[in-house]
């Protein structure tokens, strides 16, 4: 499976929550996707405003139809332009990038917790689909700011038990993903997570499953491992020269591998 650059076609753009958009893309990149948690690097405009590509996780892949789904928050200049694309327009996309979540760490019949925060939720959906396919029981715990920003609750519910936490308590448990986990005390073989750093730190520190895998975010240049923009330190060598690149060694790491 290779990284390719392809001109993909926008099939659908839909606002699914406050500032959150779901986009379906068609192109050869879909054929190359290996694991949930991989991402694509999108050039949102032909000109140079903005200049750099935007990294966005692959939320789901439909290999038969050569389609990818991404879900993104429209905030800055690039994602705003992205949210305004209309079906039929094309996008220059590089991908699939990174290694994604290891799906072979849990056996059929085992239990996996998917813990997502905000815009970290999307890649967990594709992961959940894959795990279900493999016969793994999936428990999803998804954290958002407020009821208006909740998305994909039904989609996750179709994979298994799904819990929502919102900071302001307008939907589900008031508080964080960890509040749900602490309250419920699930028994799980593995925990996969993606979301803001404080959440990743709390999940790494807690003892929620036998193994934990975290997906990291970092500002990127190349997205392919050449520019050293996105490095993080290894936990066992916090002051040395060891490093991992989020784009090409990650974005998913085993808890304890890198300093977060």
């Amino acid at each position, binding site marked *: 499976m290779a990284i390719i650059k392809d001109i993909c076609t926008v099939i659908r753009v839909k606002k699914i929550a406050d500032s959150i958009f779901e986009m379906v893309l068609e192109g050869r990149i879909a054929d190359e996707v290996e694991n949930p948690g991989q991402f694509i690097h999108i050039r949102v405009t032909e000109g140079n405003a903005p200049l750099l590509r935007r990294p966005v996780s692959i939320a789901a892949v439909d290999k038969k139809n050569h389609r990818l789904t991404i879900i993104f928050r429209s905030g800055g200049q690039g994602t705003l332009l992205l949210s305004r694309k209309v079906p039929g327009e094309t996008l220059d996309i590089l991908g699939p990038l990174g290694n994604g979540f290891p799906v072979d760490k849990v056996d059929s019949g085992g239990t996996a917790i998917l813990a997502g925060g905000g815009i970290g939720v999307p890649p967990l959906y594709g992961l959940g689909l894959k795990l279900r396919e493999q016969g793994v029981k999936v428990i999803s715990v998804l954290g958002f700011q407020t009821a208006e920003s909740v998305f994909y609750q039904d989609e996750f519910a179709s994979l298994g038990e799904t819990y929502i936490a919102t900071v302001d308590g307008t939907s589900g448990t008031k508080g964080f993903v960890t509040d749900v986990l602490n309250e419920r005390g699930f028994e799980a073989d593995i925990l996969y997570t993606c979301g803001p750093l404080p959440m990743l730190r709390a999940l790494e520190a807690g003892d929620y499953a036998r193994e934990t895998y975290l997906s990291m975010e970092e500002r990127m240049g190349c997205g392919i491992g050449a*520019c050293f923009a996105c490095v993080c330190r290894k936990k066992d060598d916090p002051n040395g020269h060891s490093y991992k690149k989020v784009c090409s060694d990650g974005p998913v790491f085993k808890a304890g591998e890198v300093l977060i």
Partner: protein
Amino acid sequence: MNRLQVELPGLTLKNPIMPASGCFGFGREFSKLYDIGQLGAIMIKAATLEPRFGNPTPRVAETPGGMLNAIGLQNPGVEKIMAEELPWLQQFDVPIIANIAGSTVEDYVSVAEKISAAPNVHALELNISCPNVKTGGIAFGTDATTAMELTRKVKAASAVPVYVKLSPNVTDIVEIAKAVEMGGADGITMINTLLGMRIDLQSGEPLLANRTGGLSGPAIKPVAIRMVYEVSRNVSIPIIGMGGVASAEDALEFLYAGASAVAVGTQNFVDPFACPSIIEELPRLLDRLGLSTVKECIGRSWKSNEPIAHHCP
């Protein structure tokens, strides 16, 4: 005859296009995307004597038409580069220009001595934008005498031609260029990044962990073109130009300004196929403009020898 060919000290380039240092690693990642043997040359990531981790993240930030970076010279150190990266690069028929950096003159000399002995290193690129620890962090490249001395010592230690990479963050780049020429430089590469900063309005703090960073990309092209134009008219060693090259047209603009070859930095991130695309497009562009070779483009814009009347804005 290869109409794209350019001959430079130590370097026979099958075309004038090469990736700029720090924007291409050691070529491994790009080699998975295309045949990197088609490049005119490769400027590899800076080598320092000891391995360096570099700066804390965030290390990059976007700006209008450009980007800031403060990677901080992360690299595995000269030994490891010679043991692992250069031998791997030998499979490609492409000359390597090894970018070297340091905090003291001794560092530079030592790296130059070692790395210039590698069989596929055809030239060194001396990055003089680095802060000199002995002078409290003032960059080697901002003082003519320091730059000349550093060049002289590195040149003496190097087994291959030495190109000095100029910093644009100076009052008089021609003065520095003449100094490094006097110091024995075989060529000049220019420009390195402009010092810049971005502040995040949410946090209220500089976006880069290092606060300042180097500005690169299309935004800086006019500054680079101006500097190449001025320097090329005042030195007799060749120049490899860079700063915001994103297309064959941009590359040609640098040649017209007086560069003999062109490096592509930031555009490799915008389009990882930037270098091969430009190489492919160049002959067509020459045709369109009725030009036959790259060589005849070099310095074409020099209207006359009159000195530049600097503008008072």
